[in-house]
């Protein structure tokens, strides 16, 4: 079968698996549903990796273009939906699928699946989530992207509220659902505006049609509306409020997927839509987009890092670190260079492994101690040396330690960003140091019992971390998969930084991703695009030094926090910022509207 023909299968196989599990799950023993789930997730993972190997390896060309239903273009016009795999899209689909397999392995047998008469329901939902995310990564059609966006959303709301016995998951899932759905409807309004102007729904078709005339208010409004939907999914400030509330309460395996890939797909969506639709003369001018994404990305990174440092609920801490890193990803995309995209792609790849591994370690704590609270767990987890080592390594990798993939991605993205504005590398170092430092602080206190027992802050809102274990009861012994999967994920993140082939593929993926003309030619004209020659990627020397610097800073911050805790006066300064995260759905919706206004203000100067 040719490469393009494989693309629909990546979406169809998990759907089939979900249907099989729903129909037969009740009759089958747990081990069979688990095995079926893994098989139906692993098959598309293998397919996506095969597609990636083919489009990245040259040979058949860097784009695999599949017109679903055989509705090929005639004379440059068509009525069908196109799936397009370039190395970046195929790579994301592969990342999603591999992470889903890891998550299913992590929850193997031990994760309690409550609906007693619906065995396999959790696994089926994970497979549906996989199909939605892969579809979003591979589609070349804007409305189809909205459909997969909503599919991801619907599954994610249900998975977030999975633990209905407690009220927090329900609250978090509701905020998540309302804010994300509203974002989705904004996106659809934008799509409708673009359809009215161009009479097209395909990304390449809309882009080519827009370039026929100068941009006006309609194009700007369409961009703002579509970008709002995607930035909500990416949890960019001020659209981010739902994320910590949802991630703090979702089951651990779900957190691994939400933080590891779903949020990053929002960033991917912004970048993909910009390059294919709005990057030409009829779209949003490059300086305007750079300004908008730099402002939003910097705000996101700084606010995420600050809030991350202030958390004692460990899952919430990791969630805010995801917000912070999303800010860095947006910054890497904002500079609109191939190097920025490829660096960010590597960063996302490394981050997915590291963040999922960290969530996996926290899951062990939760299931053993029925708590994810840094203060309550102080000194208690010394009996879990393996988990402690994995968690510490995860913290070091998060702070950008070479030779982890996070370190390489950070080094390349900050180098690309530094060419746009000299102060941006400092932002990367600062945010990596603070988020990594927060994780290391937790490691020192929880696993090593270092310093004095922490005291609660008395000056502002705080979410504590008591919760029910997800294994049906407290674990006496840590099951092997719950340690093996985080270890494998960290090894994966390490290999991203060590294997030269990964970086070289990302470098080419970045150049192809930013070549809007090549994308349109491949999709609309069926013209084979010459694959750019692979360029070996090296660790930049400054990048290594900055990575070591941010790791050292992270360690220093953690040590300071543990052995020389700050006075309460200093923490009071952050209270107003923390009060914004109020848990109130009305607040979050109001901030979403403000975010749209901000996005308008930042891009409106391109209007003539």
């Amino acid at each position, binding site marked *: 079968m040719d490469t393009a023909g494989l693309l629909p299968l990546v979406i169809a196989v998990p759907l089939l698996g979900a249907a099989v599990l729903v129909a037969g799950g009740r009759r089958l023993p747990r081990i069979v549903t688990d095995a079926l789930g893994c098989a139906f997730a692993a098959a598309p993972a293998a397919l996506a990796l095969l597609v990636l190997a083919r489009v990245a390896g040259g040979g058949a060309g860097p784009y695999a273009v599949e017109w679903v239903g055989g509705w090929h273009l005639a004379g440059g016009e068509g009525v069908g939906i196109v799936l397009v795999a370039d190395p970046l899209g195929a790579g994301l689909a592969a990342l999603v699928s591999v992470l889903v397999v890891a998550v299913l392995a992590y929850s193997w047998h031990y994760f309690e699946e409550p609906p007693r008469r619906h065995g396999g329901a959790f696994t089926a939902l994970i497979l549906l989530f996989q199909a939605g995310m892969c579809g979003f990564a591979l589609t070349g059609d804007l409305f189809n992207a909205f459909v997969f966006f909503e599919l991801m959303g619907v599954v994610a*709301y249900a998975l977030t509220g999975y633990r209905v016995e407690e009220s927090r998951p*329900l609250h978090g899932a509701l905020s998540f659902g*309302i804010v994300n759905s509203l974002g989705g*409807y904004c996106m659809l*309004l934008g799509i409708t505006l673009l359809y009215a102007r161009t009479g097209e729904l395909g990304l390449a078709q809309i882009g080519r049609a827009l370039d026929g005339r100068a941009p006006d208010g309609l194009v700007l409004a369409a961009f703002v509306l579509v970008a709002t939907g995607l930035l909500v999914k990416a949890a960019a400030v001020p659209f981010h409020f739902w994320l910590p509330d949802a991630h703090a*309460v979702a089951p651990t395996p779900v957190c691994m997927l939400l933080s590891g890939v779903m949020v990053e797909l929002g960033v991917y969506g912004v970048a993909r839509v910009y390059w294919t639709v709005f990057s030409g003369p009829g779209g949003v001018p490059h300086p305007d987009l750079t300004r908008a994404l730099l402002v939003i990305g910097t705000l996101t990174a700084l606010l995420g890092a600050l809030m991350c440092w202030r958390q004692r609920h460990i899952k919430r801490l990791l969630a805010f670190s995801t917000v912070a890193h999303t800010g860095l990803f947006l910054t890497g995309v904002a500079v609109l260079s191939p190097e920025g995209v490829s660096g960010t792609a590597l960063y996302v790849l490394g981050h997915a492994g590291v963040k999922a591994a960290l969530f996996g370690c926290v899951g062990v704590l939760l299931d053993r101690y029925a708590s994810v609270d840094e203060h309550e767990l102080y000194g208690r987890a010394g009996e879990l040396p393996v988990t402690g080592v994995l968690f510490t390594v995860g913290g070091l990798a998060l702070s950008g330690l070479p030779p982890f993939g996070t370190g390489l991605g950070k080094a390349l993205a900050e180098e690309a960003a530094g060419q746009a504005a000299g102060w941006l590398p400092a932002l990367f170092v600062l945010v990596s140091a603070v988020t990594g430092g927060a994780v290391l602080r937790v490691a020192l206190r929880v696993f090593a019992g270092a310093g004095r027992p922490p005291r609660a802050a008395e000056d502002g809102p*705080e*979410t504590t971390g008591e919760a029910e274990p997800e294994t049906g009861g407290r674990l006496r012994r840590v099951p092997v998969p719950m340690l093996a999967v985080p270890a494998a994920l960290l090894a994966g993140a390490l290999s991203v930084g060590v294997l030269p082939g990964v970086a070289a593929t990302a470098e080419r993926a970045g150049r192809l991703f930013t070549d809007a003309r090549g994308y349109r030619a491949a999709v609309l004209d069926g013209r084979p695009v010459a694959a750019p020659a692979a360029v070996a990627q090296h660790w930049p020397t400054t990048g290594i030094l900055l990575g070591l610097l941010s790791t050292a800073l992270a360690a220093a911050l953690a040590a300071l926090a543990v052995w020389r805790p700050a006075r309460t006066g200093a923490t009071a300064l952050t209270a107003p910022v923390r009060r914004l995260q109020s*848990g109130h759905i009305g607040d979050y*919706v109001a901030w979403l509207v403000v975010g749209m206004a901000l996005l308008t203000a930042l891009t409106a100067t391109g209007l003539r």
Partner: protein
Amino acid sequence: MTVLPYLVAGWIFLVGVYGLVTSRNLIHAVGCLAVAQSSTYVLLLAVGYRRGGTAPVFSDVPPDRRVVDPVVQALALTDIVVGATVTALLLALVVQLRKRHGTVDPDALSDLKG
């Protein structure tokens, strides 16, 4: 007024969002979300309208008859299914929240903060 139908869509959207922002009841908030969503139906159908066009169904009219745009109608159908399912799921969350928390007042949900 050839822009009025489009502006109505924008108005419906903002009214729905206003309801979400000021809502004192989560069931009402889910309803407001559905109102905001209905703006997308209005905009889609307004964009696809063609003066003098009939429904794009050719069982009893000749295929060269002037019809309104079938694509936006198909998109609106997808949109409606999305809206109905999201509403169902959010209401399921509210039902459970009411049981655990004893309230559907968003002001009373105070366990996720800071």
